[in-house]
């Protein structure tokens, strides 16, 4: 896959996270975490609960600030930009709790997805696209989003993120709290989104599903990257199998 190039001919990844340390209050949550995502790639972060996976994506989204290291997206320092600016640059996070505006209608939630001026200009096209992806949302566009089922709320969260025209979509535990049949649906949608050219950074506790979808993955343990590489290779790795798949 072709990578970007800066003026001096240095090749760079679409997203480069370079040795970030992050603290929650006084406690260090991440130690020198580095990772990369290329254009149009699906990369997965796997690891146990509390390992720091959510912290990583929240830091990329600029909701948290690293104390050292840097984060670059298409060469721009994300860690120096406020969270709303990160969205403008094309990086969108679907947070673990989905982050919907529960008292507002589905339509209003989607319109807020296209809040940045560039995405607002093309929102009619975006609406068509997300309604095609999730026909149920068009039928329910006037319903208050807080009254939707869990699966439908996850659809609104994904659809809202797509409305912002992201180049990189970060999904934090999209399968959480959903029935298996719906999880399968959501994963298929994520795959389709990726096929349309959007890079995906997927945080997932369902390791088998995540490694099935992503080409590459990073294993996060206690705030550090402890393994990385092709999903196939990780699936075959004995240590990974023992820790996350229960088939040592």
């Amino acid at each position, binding site marked *: 896959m072709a990578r970007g190039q800066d003026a001096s001919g240095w090749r760079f990844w679409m997203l480069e996270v370079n040795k970030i340390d992050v603290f929650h209050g006084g406690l260090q949550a991440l130690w020198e975490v580095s990772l990369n995502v290329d254009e149009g790639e699906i990369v997965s972060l796997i690891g146990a609960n509390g390992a720091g996976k959510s912290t990583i994506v929240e830091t990329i*989204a600029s*909701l948290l600030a690293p104390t050292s290291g840097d984060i670059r997206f298409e060469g721009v320092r994300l860690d120096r930009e406020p969270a*709303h600016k990160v969205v*403008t640059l094309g990086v*969108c996070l679907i947070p673990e709790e989905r*982050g919907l505006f529960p008292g507002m209608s589905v339509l209003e939630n989607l319109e807020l997805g296209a809040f940045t001026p560039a995405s607002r200009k093309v929102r009619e096209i975006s609406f068509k696209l997300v309604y095609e992806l999730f026909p149920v949302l068009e039928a329910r566009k006037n319903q208050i989003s807080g009254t939707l089922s869990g699966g439908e709320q996850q659809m609104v969260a994904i659809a809202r993120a797509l409305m912002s025209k992201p180049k990189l979509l970060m999904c934090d535990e999209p399968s959480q709290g959903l029935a298996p049949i719906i999880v399968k649906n959501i994963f298929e949608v994520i795959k389709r989104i990726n096929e349309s050219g959007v890079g995906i950074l997927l945080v997932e506790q369902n390791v088998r599903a995540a490694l099935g979808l992503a080409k590459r993955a990073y294993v996060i343990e206690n705030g550090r990257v402890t393994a990385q590489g092709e999903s196939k290779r990780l699936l075959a790795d004995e240590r990974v199998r023992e820790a996350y798949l229960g088939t040592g």
Partner: protein
Amino acid sequence: MIHWKKGALSAGIVLILVLIPLFVQRSDIITYLFLTLLYIILAQSWNILGGFTGQQNLGHAAFFGVGALTARYIWLHYGFPLPLAILGGGLATAAFALIIGFPAFRLRGVYFIIGTLVMAEILRMVFDNVFPRADVMPMKLLATYNLAPRYYVGLLFAVLSVVAVYWVNRSRIGLGMMSIREDEDAAEATGVNTLKYKLLAFAISTFMAGLAGGVFAYYTAATKVGDLFAPVWTFDAVIIVFVGGVGTIVGPIVGAVFFVLLKQLLSLYLPGGMHVLVFGVLFIVVVLYLPGGLIGLMAKLRKKPA
């Protein structure tokens, strides 16, 4: 269809309000209507920030006061024409709000509420000391004092404020404001510059509060300057918004009609100051049992009897 009906209804109400002084000469009725209109402006202004944006500002009296003081001063002492004076009062208020908005919005939740409350009280005390005597209109103006022009100025700004809130509510600005009320972090994460939109809501809200102050400055024959900053201006507006229906456009209108009427009746039949107690209880009851206010109650009743 419904849209068209609502428009016709609103136009009808405004037309009736325009015609009333031609047929009604009783000054108590005109005063009641004027106060209702004044409170509609003040309640709509509070609702922009407190209702739609979810930032409960308990220092609203400060902005009413700054608007009233500025408008009255440049109107009476510098000879500005009245419309310009009221507009100037609104602009001065919004400018003042933007100066204190940057530090104030570093505070979140209950700290913002306490911060704004304290700010208004400090201003009240300062102005009480700087202008200890009542500010009375010059004799020339008092001799020709007439309620009708006050009423029309009130009506004009009340209509403008409702139209402005309606427009804001349907615009992208309103969408951004409401997303902050729903979840400030999520709003930021979907691309809403939350500080910018909070400041914008604050500016619009305080500009309108300043206009309300200007309308009152034109109405009142004599006032102590400190009283323009009294907490009652804040809490009357808050009670009206919550009783009427917080975060709605019609709520502050219904609330103002109800509130002013009840206040007049209670102060007629209850010993002095007791009406405040009634409003306190009413406020608690509404917040606990009727979070949608009168608007929410009407919607519920309309659904049920079927």
